[in-house]
């Protein structure tokens, strides 16, 4: 679980475009409105206010539905909420917008692996982890 939270924080940092260790995303600069919503979602998720985090991310998605990081973050929140089916679906949705961002893809496959493991699908989880490995990191 702690790994997950760390992952989320890292993703959030990526979203807010303040993650120096990551290569600059190859997409349009973040919309300020989206960035502010992501920030408050992160604060809410850190404080365990998951449904507030979820609401902020959905607001952000209404503004920018093609942003794979938003879908990924929402997947992370669902994982924390224990909604593993949605966590996997949302990570897949994130993958569909990921373009050439393999780092993002690898992270999505890790979320999927986690969701599958939580549902007792160890073989599926293993496969997902292998996909994650293939995308690097």
């Amino acid at each position, binding site marked *: 679980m702690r790994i997950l939270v760390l992952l989320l924080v890292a993703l959030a940092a990526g979203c807010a475009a303040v993650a120096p260790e990551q290569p600059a995303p190859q997409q349009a600069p973040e919309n300020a409105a989206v960035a502010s919503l992501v920030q408050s979602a992160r604060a809410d998720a850190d404080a365990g206010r998951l*449904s507030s985090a979820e609401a*902020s991310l*959905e607001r952000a998605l*209404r503004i920018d*539905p093609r942003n794979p990081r938003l879908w990924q973050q929402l997947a992370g929140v669902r994982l924390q909420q224990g909604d593993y089916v*949605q966590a996997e*679906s949302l990570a897949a949705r994130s993958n*569909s917008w990921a*373009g050439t961002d393999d780092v993002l893809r690898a992270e999505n496959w890790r979320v999927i692996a986690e969701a599958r493991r939580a549902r007792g699908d160890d073989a599926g989880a293993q496969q997902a982890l292998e996909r994650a490995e293939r995308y690097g990191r």
Partner: protein
Amino acid sequence: MARRAKPGRGRRLLRLALLVLALGASAYVLYLDQRVRHEFEGRRFALPAKIYARPLELHVGLRVPEADVLGELRALGYRPVAHPGDSGWYVQDGATLEISVRPFVFWDGPQPARVLRVTFGDDAVTGLADAQGAPLALARLEPLLIGGIYPTNNEDRVLVRLNQVPKTLIGELIAVEDRRFYTHWGFDPRGLARAAYSMVTGRRIEGGSTLTQQLVKNFFLSPERTLGRKLTELAMAVLLELHYSKNEILETYLNEIYLGQDRDRAIHGVGLAAQFYFGKPIEDLTQAESALLVALVKGPAFYDPFRHPKRALARRNLVLREARDQHALTDEQYQLARATDLGLNAQRAMGTSPYPAFVDLVHRQLLSDYDEADLRSEGLRIFSTLDPRAQRAAEHALADRLDAFDRDKRFGAPGLEGAVVLADSQTGELQALVGGRDARYQGFNRALDALRPVGSLLKPAIYLTALEQPARYTLATLLDDSPFTWKARGAEPWRPVNYDRRFHGAVPLQTALAHSYNVAAARLGTELGVDKVIATAHRLGIEHELPPYAATLLGAADLSPFELAQMYQTIASGGFRVPLHAIRDVTTQDGKPLKRYPLAVEQAFPAAPVYLLVAGLQDVVREGTAKSLAEWLPPELGAAGKTGTTNDQRDAWFAGFTGDRVGVVWVGYDDNRAARLLGASAALPVWGETMAALEPQPLALPPPAGIERAWIDPQTGLRADAGCAGALELPFAAGSAPQARAPCAGAAGGGSVKSWFERIFGL
């Protein structure tokens, strides 16, 4: 003793009888007393659930013309003049809009009042700042109230406390309706006598019942008029006075009283009446406005100020005069109030909702989580997904087009009907729902309940089933559009024909889809298996059972516009089905969050086949049956869609999507007459006009891994090069592009079209 016994016994009997009567009467009074106390105390006014539209979220980059933001502010009742220190106003200065936003309690907490400065350029928000000019990332306006879910009698009210009600309103009410209210015991013999006298002379305006009696009448009793009922009313009024203070009775009266009718919505209580007639909170009513509400007590229909302004004005002035005579107003106040006009709110009546079709859907979706009774009484606040801009655009487009068709065709009454469903293709949020041509009419909700044959709108399910097998089918695969007979046991042989009554021979799959060739689609569908195609339709989101016959392939199945919108949503979002929904959140009356309806997605199809299908549906707009969409939307937008027309042109359909919205339009007659209208000429224009009004986003699905592009000769379905006239560049799933080169491509291989075709199909 014996002599006195007789009369004594008679008297005793009488006494006994009297005692029994007295006991009976006391028992009855006791019963009434119980009832009065029980109901008065247990009584909680039923508060309808309130339904809100989505709040407009302003941020830099939002594509919205300034005029539409102004429209939203006007609909919210914002005044176009600055009122420093107050909220609910705006000032427009060229491309800059200063808005003083009202406070509002959202699902995620209260938002205080604040001033925004919004700058526009090129139909988009280019700047957003606070009053001091500091930039803001995001700001919400409060959402528009779009309706409610009312008690069965459609009673609506806004509860007020006695101390909110202006003193003059109370003074006027008492002067006119019940002068001795503060001193009587629930009834007023002098008032009754005077009422009787005034009935004879017709001079006074006071009624005979006290406020307490009026309240009892509204609260506990049916409207029949008998002596027994009158006595019960009297007894209950006295009992009410015994148990409760004058102020408690007055407060209840002010919240209960019926003061008007807004179409099917009954306006109860002074709080809602102030809003309904004057668009302001009760605290802000002037003396003249208060007097009008008091005037309405006697007969809200007879004195309806919208319909009978002269009558209402005369009655209001009478109220003012009585109030002056009773010293509730000074002479100066009276003269001033008397000189003002009615001051009515110009806002159009909305009835229970201006968007009955949408509210109907919200109601249905709520019923899966809430009791009907709670919805009608608990004052829940429902935050819906309705986008008033989108709704307005869809309503106008439908009404305008149908008016024009009826003018041209003159098929007589009843006229053409139609329905529109519009949703965010990525989040599944419904933005607009039009249930018929008169969008204000709360009747048959065609968007949800009209089950009509869907015609070619189901064809994408055939093509998607095919494209899921890339080893067998690609967009370039040649299909056979030649005469075809399908025989099934126990059914008439089925011989589909094309709309142009011709057969087109060998055509690439993409062309067959673009031109909606029936025979090619029927052959393909039967080749794949009708059951497989039906299964695809269900995976796409069709919930109704589909008849397991070949004719279903060409749309001989009755579905609602709503269901088709779900099907096209799945396609529009690259295979991720998101259940179309109309509600975001629900809170209690005072803003406590109750329930969220979270975004849920399900990957119903792998990305590649849906990507190919979308490319095909874009070609329908670029080259095929929906080419005329170019009249409304620029080709660069890459919109995708499908036309549908059923037998004898009874139903005209169009379903399609841009980068951000998916929409379905149906046009036809309720009684199933032949409309003689094509999907492309009747439904498509409504769709195009609606989308064009909403700054559509270009449609560009991200190509899934492994998608490659190749040039194809449409004559042969083989690889083309520069030498081939009319060559197409098509996307293919990894490794599925044809390797053989067309004759026009010069190089070896190929052979004639015919021989290749015969080889494949074994003809």
